[in-house]
């Protein structure tokens, strides 16, 4: 298949392109006009075509989209205020969908997020799966969760309206090289000082290479058409287990400040009530003191990847231990893999020329 992958130069996108090439697809990798290609191990791969565009502008997108079999839409904005994230996530998706319609491309895999679920009223230790209701009051959540929910609805509504093939994937906490901390652990004060709350809460981790494999498989899987699937690895560890495993492998000491879950809940509830009563809801408090956000990060719940496994026939390739080893290896194994592939291709080319 020929795949257009938006957000190709991002943390997840880099691995999705790599995985698409491994699975034998042709890739059109969309990167923003001013983004450097350094650090993208597949940039010279013969099956990769680099396309330059910014999805926040509608201009020229039809040409970018034209001729592909499926779009893997990863691009989203995580930084800035809600307006910046509307631009990079929602408006970007509006433009992409319009361009796909104009270019006659009728298949999309949309990458959503676990952050779209409603956590506050969910019972502790209950199962969170694809049937769990999405957040009913996105304004209580952060800009990321809000815009990802709007983005997911846009993709599903547009695809259904136009009779397209579509798959919505909702990854859990994606981790990997340089992204080993997740907000689902609490709050990272600095590289060496972490606040952890909810030691027994399971963390729905998705190692970036495992996640990338599921995304690429969804593009070619007929059974996934119209499906919404959570993406997470097997046996999600508790916060305690993940942090212990991580601290054992890190080469520097991390000071952990432990706040019991029930204490943090009381603190957040008190802060929220104070805000409502004293400031009429107009006060700005850190996310961890907003109950809807705190629960979304650290509430103890159970998770399952059953539907993903059954629909795609996917099993995570790398265990937690292996994933941490790959993430903390002195050099990125993916870089090494593509460097070797490139050397081998060059050698073969020279041999053919000599012959």
């Amino acid at each position, binding site marked *: 298949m020929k795949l257009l992958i938006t957000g190709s130069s991002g943390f997840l996108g880099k691995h999705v392109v790599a995985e698409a090439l491994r699975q034998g697809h042709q890739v059109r990798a969309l990167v*923003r*006009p*001013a*983004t450097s290609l350094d650090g993208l191990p597949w940039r010279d791969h013969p099956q990769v075509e680099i396309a330059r565009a*910014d999805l*926040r*502008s509608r201009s020229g997108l039809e040409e970018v989209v034209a001729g592909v079999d499926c779009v893997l839409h990863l691009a989203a904005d995580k930084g*800035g*205020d809600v*307006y*910046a994230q*509307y631009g990079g996530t*929602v*408006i970007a998706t*509006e433009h992409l969908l319009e361009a796909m319609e104009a270019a006659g491309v009728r298949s999309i895999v949309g990458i959503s997020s676990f952050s779209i679920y409603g956590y506050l009223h969910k019972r502790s230790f209950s199962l969170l799966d694809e049937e769990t209701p999405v957040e009913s009051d996105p*304004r209580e959540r952060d800009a990321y969760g809000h815009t990802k929910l*709007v983005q997911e609805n*846009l993709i599903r509504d547009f695809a259904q309206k136009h009779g397209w093939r579509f798959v919505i994937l909702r990854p859990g906490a994606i981790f990997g090289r340089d992204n080993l901390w997740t907000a689902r652990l609490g709050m990272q004060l600095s590289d060496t000082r972490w606040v952890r709350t909810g030691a027994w809460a399971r963390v729905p981790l998705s190692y970036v290479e495992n996640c990338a494999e599921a995304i690429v498989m969804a593009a070619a899987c007929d059974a996934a058409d119209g499906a919404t699937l959570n993406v997470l690895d097997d046996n999600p560890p508790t916060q305690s287990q993940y942090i212990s495993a991580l601290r054992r492998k890190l080469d520097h000491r991390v000071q952990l400040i432990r706040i019991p879950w029930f204490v943090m809940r009381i603190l957040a509830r008190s802060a929220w009530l104070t805000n409502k009563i004293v*400031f009429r809801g*107009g*006060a*700005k*408090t850190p996310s961890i003191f907003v109950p809807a956000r705190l629960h979304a990060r650290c509430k103890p719940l159970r998770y399952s990847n059953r539907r993903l496994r059954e629909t795609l026939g996917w099993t995570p390739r790398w265990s937690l231990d292996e994933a941490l080893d790959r993430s903390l290896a002195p050099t990125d194994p993916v870089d090494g893999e593509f460097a070797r592939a490139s050397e081998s291709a060059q050698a073969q080319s020279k041999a053919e020329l000599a012959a």
Partner: protein
Amino acid sequence: MSSKTPYRSAVIGAGKISEEHLRFLTTSPAATADAVCELSPALGEYAAEMFGVERAYTDYREMLQDRNPDVVHILTPPHTHRQLVTDCIDSGAHVIVEKPIATSNAEFHDLWSMAQSKGVALIEDHNYRFNEPVLAIEKLIEAGELGDIEEVEVRMALGIRGGGRYADANLPHPSHKLPAGVLHEFITHLTYLTLRFLPTFDRVGAAWSNHAGGELFKYDDLDALVIGGSTHARIRFSARTKPDCFCLTVRGSRGWAETDLFQPHLRVVTPRPGGEQLSPLANQLINGVALAGSSVKGFLNKVRQKTPYEGLGTFLDLAYASLDGASDPPVTFDDMDRATRLIEALLAEENQV
């Protein structure tokens, strides 16, 4: 209030500044938020839902025809103002427009003539003029506390080169194409505040620089001297100096006053009871206490998410109160004319340093 109140108002552009306008429209007895128009359907719906606006549109012409609003707030990037203002005036609506109203003085005059011929108001947002510390300085001047004004300094530092929408090389902001580049987005604030205390100007010298270089920014620094009669004004803008500030200092023949509109406080140095010997001490004590009070207020403002746009509410209150012609608008033809003329003078080749 006129018999027409509350006015049915519409907003074009649902970016960040629209929050401030829509908050006013949904809380003021003078207006109702009737419609919002935004090119992105999702962003338009977000704004409408957030502020309980009846309907969101993606086509402003359709909105003007459907809703026939009494007042339109134009909150889009500057290069779109001419067309939007023209069409809104044509529809018979009063227009309140974000700065800069036009990219030249001649363009402003064209828009003004159109508004006059249609009998509708055209008002550019000069919100910082209505921030509490600026109004307090005006009161001091009116009371003669500062004496005759001799010097004005308006200084803005904004780290826009370090990141954010203006520094985004992937999708250059449309303001980069304005005559002063992205500084054109801010220069109206600097000129209207200067001209509040410097009624005329006859000599101008301006040094426009791009100190950090590169192709994206036309300028990242302005250092200008403006002289009107015997009063001197200095206008400074820096995209590199840290931390961000928006300082105003007014010096008179008796004393001086200064503020920072981003970290609001008011420091006033004037003759105090106790004569020449005790005045310096009294000024230090009084300003020390005032600064401590401002710190507490600043902290509470931060918690309450109050922004430096606090003057916008006062500006809009006065603008709506003037729509029936019973009072002068908060920003008059003369204010807008002089601000656009000063911007042109700062950009004029013969005035470049």
